[in-house]
């Protein structure tokens, strides 16, 4: 039982990081990524590959994975973020499909069988094999990510981002380089999603393309919308609720996606600010009443 609760806590922690990274894109840059699971998967696969085949030590594997995710985020963000929000949504959705397809077809990624035997992380001789230790590692990462994003959104740069989200033209007039900001935050979000992927891969020790498909991207989107777009506290709560609730409602497993879809539409119609949107970091733009 304890092991099960620890497992839920670790998974919730990983989802918190993934959700915060997506919320940076949605709530602060005013864009949608529909292939966020692809960055999560890129992080997981990169770290797994370099650890299993080249025996990279964990910190180095982590750095490589985060770097690969960030570079892919940059490559996707550069052409699309200068344009309208819809383009990013479709391009990321397509990117998700491509990453899935590549992982299924390449020999080195093991195709549909995936990669097995990913070693538990070891930092300075300290092994994080056991669940309590792993939870500690995840908690540390969550703490760092929350702290970093909190500092970011409170800073000059965070205000600039919110200005872009609320009114891009005005932000531009005020001298904010809007494309550069959007690309930077998208790259950062991709890197954080990669980090979540690394934590997942080394925890489960086995990965295959199924985990990183559209389903996970939509799940992350639901977590963001449920918690409240543009709310860090909301992301934490949304991620915890949606990672624990399905476990308790195992019987309704077949209806999961149906519920997520209905949840998204229903929330946006009746409570677009989510659970925590009324807080300090509320999204006023949702009710801007302008076309």
């Amino acid at each position: 039982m304890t092991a099960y609760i620890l497992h839920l806590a670790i998974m919730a922690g990983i989802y918190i990081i993934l959700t915060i990274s997506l919320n940076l894109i949605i709530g602060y840059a005013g864009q949608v990524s529909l292939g966020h699971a692809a960055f999560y998967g890129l992080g997981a696969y990169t770290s797994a590959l370099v650890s299993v085949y080249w025996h990279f030590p964990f910190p180095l594997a982590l750095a490589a994975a985060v770097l690969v995710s960030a570079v892919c985020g940059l490559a996707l963000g550069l052409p699309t973020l200068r344009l309208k929000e819809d383009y990013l949504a479709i391009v990321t959705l397509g990117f998700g499909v491509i990453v899935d397809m590549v992982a299924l077809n390449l020999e080195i990624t093991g195709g549909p069988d995936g990669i097995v035997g990913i070693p538990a992380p070891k930092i300075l001789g300290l092994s994080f094999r056991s669940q309590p230790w792993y939870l500690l590692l995840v908690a540390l990462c969550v703490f760092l990510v929350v702290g970093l994003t909190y500092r970011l959104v409170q800073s000059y740069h965070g205000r600039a981002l919110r200005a872009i989200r609320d009114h891009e033209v005005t932000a531009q007039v005020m001298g904010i380089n809007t494309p550069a900001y959007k690309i930077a935050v998208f790259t950062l979000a991709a890197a954080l999603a990669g980090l979540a992927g690394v934590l997942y891969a080394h925890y489960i020790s086995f990965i295959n393309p199924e985990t990183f498909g559209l389903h996970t991207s939509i799940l992350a989107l639901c977590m963001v919308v449920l918690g409240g777009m543009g709310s860090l506290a909301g992301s934490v709560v949304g991620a915890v609720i949606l990672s624990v609730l399905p476990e308790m409602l195992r019987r309704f497993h077949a209806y999961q996606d149906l519920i997520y879809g209905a949840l998204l539409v229903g929330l946006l119609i009746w409570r677009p600010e989510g659970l925590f949107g009324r807080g300090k970091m509320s999204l006023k733009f949702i009710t801007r009443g302008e076309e």
Partner: protein
Amino acid sequence: MFLQQLLNGLTTGSVYALIALGYTMIYGILGLINFAQGEIYMCGAFVAVLLLSTGQVSFAVAFAAGMAAAALLGLALERVAFRPLRGTHPLVPLISAIGASIFLQSLALLLFGPNDRPFPVHFTFRTITLAGLPVSTLQGAILGAALLFMALLVVFVRYTRYGKAIVACALDRDTARLMGINVDRMVALTFLIGSALSGAAGVMMAIYYNATYPRMGLLPGLKAFSAAILGGVGNIPGAILGGLVLGVAESLGAAYIYSGYKDAIAFVILIAVLLLRPQGLLSGWRRH
């Protein structure tokens, strides 16, 4: 070989073009992308296949019913997922359409199961030789039907009262309202027409690939969107051209490069277009 691939590409491309027309028309009038277009396509295919498998209805009736069901679904979608959210940040209807798309896909999965359904009516298609080129009559029929629908749409938009009203709404919604056009009704009509075309595309693809399944709308939907961007979003001739170009590129790419990544070609084109010519191929033509 080359001409055969070209013809295959034109056939699938004409179907992409039909779906792309739905995207483009809705984008033109609302400035929004209807993410659930692929599910509307799937709905059209399912309704036709289910009706035909009862053995009671003729093919023409089933085809029309598929289109009608798709059109009704499009109308319902506009009412539920778009209309209540008009006037919000563009992000909000975008996400709600994604939610609707996931909802419909999993609903179909629950109702019909994950397996492919073959098309219940077996047509006997011959291969005829046209100017030294073997042409399957099935391909000819799909291409012909798709081109007919497109021609009808262009005539409707250019020369009828309602078509002109839709164009007026796309150009300037507020002015159109001042001219006495019922904008809400025109938006609904746009959804109706765009969805009916997607439904027709769904039935044709169900015959062509002989498979109907809940997730069948995902990739054609994405590709049709790429086609709409390629031609210039909001531009009707552009969507047709974009669909055909995309279908041909995909078919030739699969034949001459590597067939395993066939589905990725559309996205490569999409990203290239966004980088090099984000306004699309036919952006100069603002006329619908």
